């Protein structure tokens, strides 16, 4: 097994910072790659070394396998941590590293390949009798795809085989809409992924998104670190995650987690991964997909188990045995992650860009902040608009919610529109507090999640503050003596 002397992080932003903190604690030097737009980012300042990479777009630079391998040579890094996104689930990247004798901190390339294609992963589950929602693929059904999809019954979900992020997804409520929905989904899938292949799956109403963190070493040991509830989503992307899942029956929890471990064993899984499930209101659960990497929401698992997943990933990658058995995994209290985005919840969650004029993050014992920005930086359209993650821990869910609200209150971002107030309204919502959550939570409660109306006195105070902080209003040169205002304010 390899020794790991120096690790290159093929990523940026908060996850690069998060990995660097663990490397610092383990006394392993950490290098990063960075595009010019990130030159002054906290990750670059934290890293011992940074290698500049370039590309047609900033994202393309972080996806350029050969430049990253060059950066390993330059820095002498003998291992790469891919973080999440970018090359984290790219089997070709893992293979190239292995050819160069560089350790990829993640699973084997063949596992990434198997689980990365949704149709291949489905077939694997069918062959091994893992629970899967009734479904039919275009590839299997051919000409009869619409007919066989109709046989599953409505409601149906049409999804892109190569998909993700809600692209190429259509819900069919009435069979007569099926043909059109298939056409729409294929068109969207073709545009988004360059692959129009779709499949149809039974649509579970009021589903919960429950996922299980697993970690496996190279000696055949696999443990799960409990589940995460990730049902609060907008645009099919998570914004609040927690562990444990509220109100989950202990027996059902045990079965879901055991299934995740079995799937991992069967795939010959190595390193950290997440098995995602859809949980129906009747307690049936179905395999959704496996993410063969660290996930954005991994800190909630760390908060309740007291483990450092990045450290475990590195130790496993250098051949160590898992430090604990399943029976030794303890879950203590409750953790919630709040994803702070530069976006406007009042305008269909459209991303916002701009300068971070004021940027203050909360602090405290039970709060962990994963952040890749600082005051004065600009949020650009080059990357995902996530600013930071606030993760809170409490002895129970009620206390975690309270601490989440306090953390949001202590957060101050001025210069871009953020979803901070929106997150506050979700945490304060009675349906959220009682744990009545499912992936349709946000559309279902749209009305009660919109901002409360502004009173006239409050409105006028805001207008006054804006006026008095504007240079034109305060510059005496622009002042109009009161008697003359009727002639208007146009000067020169």
């Amino acid at each position, binding site marked *: 097994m390899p020794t790991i002397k120096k690790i290159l992080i093929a990523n940026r932003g908060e996850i690069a910072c998060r990995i660097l903190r663990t490397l610092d604690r383990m006394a392993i030097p950490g290098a990063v790659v960075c595009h010019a737009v990130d030159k002054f980012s906290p990750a670059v300042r934290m890293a011992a070394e940074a290698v500049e990479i370039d590309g047609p777009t900033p994202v393309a630079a972080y996806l350029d396998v050969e430049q990253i391998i060059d950066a390993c040579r330059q820095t002498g890094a003998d291992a790469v941590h891919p973080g999440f996104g970018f090359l984290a689930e790219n089997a070709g990247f893992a293979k190239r590293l292995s050819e160069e004798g560089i350790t990829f901190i993640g699973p084997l390339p063949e596992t990434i390949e198997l689980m990365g294609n949704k149709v291949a992963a489905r077939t694997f589950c069918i062959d091994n009798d893992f629970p899967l929602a009734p479904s039919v693929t275009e590839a299997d059904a051919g000409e009869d795809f619409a007919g066989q999809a109709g046989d599953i019954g409505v409601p149906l979900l049409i999804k892109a085989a190569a998909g993700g992020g809600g692209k190429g997804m259509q819900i069919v409520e009435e069979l007569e809409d099926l043909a059109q929905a298939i056409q729409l989904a294929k068109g969207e899938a073709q545009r988004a992924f360059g692959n129009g292949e779709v499949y149809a799956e039974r649509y579970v109403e009021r589903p919960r998104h429950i996922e299980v963190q697993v970690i496996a070493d190279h000696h055949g040991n696999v443990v799960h670190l409990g589940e995460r509830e990730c049902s609060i989503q907008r645009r099919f992307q998570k914004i609040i995650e927690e562990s444990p899942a509220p109100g989950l029956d202990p027996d059902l929890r045990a079965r879901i987690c055991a299934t995740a471990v079995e799937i991992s064993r069967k795939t010959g899984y190595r390193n950290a991964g997440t098995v995602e499930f859809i949980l129906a209101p009747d307690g049936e659960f179905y395999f959704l997909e496996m993410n063969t990497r660290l996930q954005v929401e991994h800190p909630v698992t760390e908060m309740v188990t007291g483990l450092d997943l990045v450290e475990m990933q590195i130790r496993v990658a250098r051949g160590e045995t898992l430090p604990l058995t399943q029976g030794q995994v303890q879950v203590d209290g409750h953790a919630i992650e709040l994803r702070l985005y530069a976006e406007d919840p009042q305008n269909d969650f459209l991303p916002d*860009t701009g300068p971070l004029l004021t940027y203050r993050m909360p602090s405290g014992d039970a709060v962990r902040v994963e952040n890749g920005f600082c005051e004065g930086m600009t949020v650009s*359209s080059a990357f995902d608009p996530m600013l930071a993650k606030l993760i809170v821990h409490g002895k129970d869910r009620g206390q975690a919610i309270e601490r989440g609200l306090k953390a949001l209150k202590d957060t101050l971002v*001025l210069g871009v*529109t953020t979803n901070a107030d929106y997150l506050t309204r979700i945490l304060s919502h009675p349906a959220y507090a009682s744990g009545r959550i499912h992936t349709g939570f946000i559309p279902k409660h749209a009305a009660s999640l919109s901002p409360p109306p502004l009173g006239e006195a409050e409105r006028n105070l805001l*207008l006054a503050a*804006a006026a008095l*902080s*504007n240079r*034109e209003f305060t510059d005496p040169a622009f002042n109009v003596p009161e008697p003359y205002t009727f002639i208007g304010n146009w000067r020169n």
Partner: protein
Amino acid sequence: MQRRIDLLDEHHTVTVFGQPGEQRLQVADGEPQPVALTVDAAGHRVIQLGDQRADIQIAVKGETAYIRAFDHSFTLHIVDPVDQAAQEVGGSSNTARAPMPGTVVEITVAAGDPVTKGQSMITIESMKILTMITAPRDGEVSQVHVEPGDTFDKNAALITLREKEE
């Protein structure tokens, strides 16, 4: 000094009278009231208007004020009179503008094409999210300002419409 200030999609006319230190402020045609924005020893800002007051946090960039007050964040735009005049003659509704910076993915209309309100004209990508830009009203495409692969800034003109020739 009078300006239009936009808050939560509503337009407000705000007038400030007098010299700093003894200013009064009027919202629409309401009663002008004494107004002051002060900073206390701890650096907290306080806005006072008549007998109302509030602790606020504020950052200003150009004509935009970002304010945190009453446990909420607000964005207020002070509208330049020139822009305001352009909007009032209806200039903006002829042009579909970029809601955010991004890249053009696909254009489904060409100059001369008739379009109906809500019809998809162009797909843009920003921060990995695809967004369709639709026709703001019925009409005919007068000009397409961008090509697939082009990048643009927020508010950039993408497509201009004209009245349909009957």
